[in-house]
């Protein structure tokens, strides 16, 4: 299998003492969706933050190796890396003072792309990919904050897509949304995997089983089990995995 991300012997720490990820080994296949599940505090958000070096931003350190498309993550400039490995957060976070258009164009401008004529087709393409274009095409100058929560989240996804990343990290992208908006985000994930690799952290077991091809279960910093999602949710190998996905703890 063609793996876009290869994580070997990854350990992550906060304040050098708090060992939050312990010797993690994961290969993430290209153009697939990998769900990361586990109870609160298990290290799943830390894990995806390591994949675009956001872990360092919050004072964390790591050892071990992470390769994205063959490049050693620690040797890539973090700003360039985050262009390749985009991130969508739990709470939609459009830039509050910017229009819908400018929200999507923000990452492009940061990377030196200028001029409305150049930006407009990329913004349209990104909004279409994020299944938002038809809802906002007549209001591109309005504030991103005027949109509903679900639309704001799709706007953030469009903003991530605009810089043409290889990987999209999603940290509970639908947990603050109503069922209909959640369903739209899930449909979107399904569409996006044709072009992108997606790593999604979720607390929602049904969501993990619906959207992902592979699932990794973390527990107190350990990777307990990683397998094909269908296997994970029908006959997991590990008793702890079974107890967690069945709601017996966590």
């Amino acid at each position: 299998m063609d793996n876009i991300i290869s994580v070997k012997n990854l350990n992550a720490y906060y304040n050098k003492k708090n060992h939050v990820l312990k010797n993690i080994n994961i290969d993430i296949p290209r153009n697939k969706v990998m769900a990361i599940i586990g109870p609160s505090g298990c290290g799943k958000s830390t894990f995806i933050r390591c994949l675009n070096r956001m872990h360092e931003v919050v004072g964390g350190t790591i050892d071990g190796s992470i390769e994205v498309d063959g490049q050693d993550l620690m040797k890539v400039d973090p700003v360039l890396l985050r262009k390749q490995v985009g991130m969508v957060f739990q709470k939609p976070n459009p830039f509050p003072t910017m229009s819908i258009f400018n929200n999507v164009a923000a990452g492009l401008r940061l990377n030196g792309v200028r001029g409305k004529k150049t930006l407009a087709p990329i913004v349209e393409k990104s909004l279409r990919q994020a299944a938002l274009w038809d809802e906002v095409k007549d209001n591109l100058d309005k504030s991103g904050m005027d949109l509903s929560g679900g639309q704001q989240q799709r706007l953030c996804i469009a903003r991530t897509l605009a810089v043409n990343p290889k990987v999209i990290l999603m940290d509970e992208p639908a947990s603050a949304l109503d069922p209909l908006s959640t369903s739209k985000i899930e449909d979107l994930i399904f569409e996006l995997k044709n072009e992108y690799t997606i790593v999604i952290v979720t607390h929602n077991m049904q969501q993990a089983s619906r959207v992902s091809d592979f699932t990794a279960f973390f527990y107190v910093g350990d990777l307990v089990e990683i397998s094909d999602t269908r296997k994970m949710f029908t006959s997991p190998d590990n008793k702890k995995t079974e107890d967690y996905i069945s709601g017996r703890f966590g």
Partner: protein
Amino acid sequence: MQEHYTQEIEDLKTNLFKMAALVDEQIERAMKSLQENDLEIIKGIKAKDHEIDAYDNLIKTQCENILAIFQPVASDLRYIMSVIMVNANLERCGDIAINISRRVKRTSEHHNLLIESNLIEMSKIARQMVKDSIDSFINLDLDLANKSLSEDESVDEINRAAFRFFIAKMQENPSLIEPCSHLIVLSRLIERLADHATHISENLIFYVEAKLIAHRKKLEKRENE
């Protein structure tokens, strides 16, 4: 939520076990009547079947509710799927007990043919298979389930031999056409009863070991062709 779920599963188990006990009792009566040619035992057997039918609907509804509300996964999901299948098997076993008792009534004057055709022996094996499969599902006893599964072939063999026996009897003596026709159906009913016992055991194996073993022999045979 977990407590609520556990309670729902306990209620479901209780109803399935009560239904299984009723089915077991019905089969016991039908088989005893067949083996001893005693028509007294099967009096009122049909009325009891309504209770089984009521449990069938109740269990289906409980399973539907559990799937809709709790969306179980892994072994919890396999358990509900197994219960849905076992419930259907038990309900059919209940119907077969009624049908066997009907055929016993119609053939009671030809009990000697049952003995000669080996249907008595076949009924004993099938009856034990049903008992073992139900017990195995209740106690999650894989050994007992496998024991029950291993008996199915001998029931099938007796069924095939009995068919040949009854055809020969009818050719020999046309006055036996009617009773032998009933007895061919009776043999087929006992064979179906053993099949349902097999399905119950297969469902236990699916639940406990996450293995689908139904149709295994047929599929292996086709692969080898």
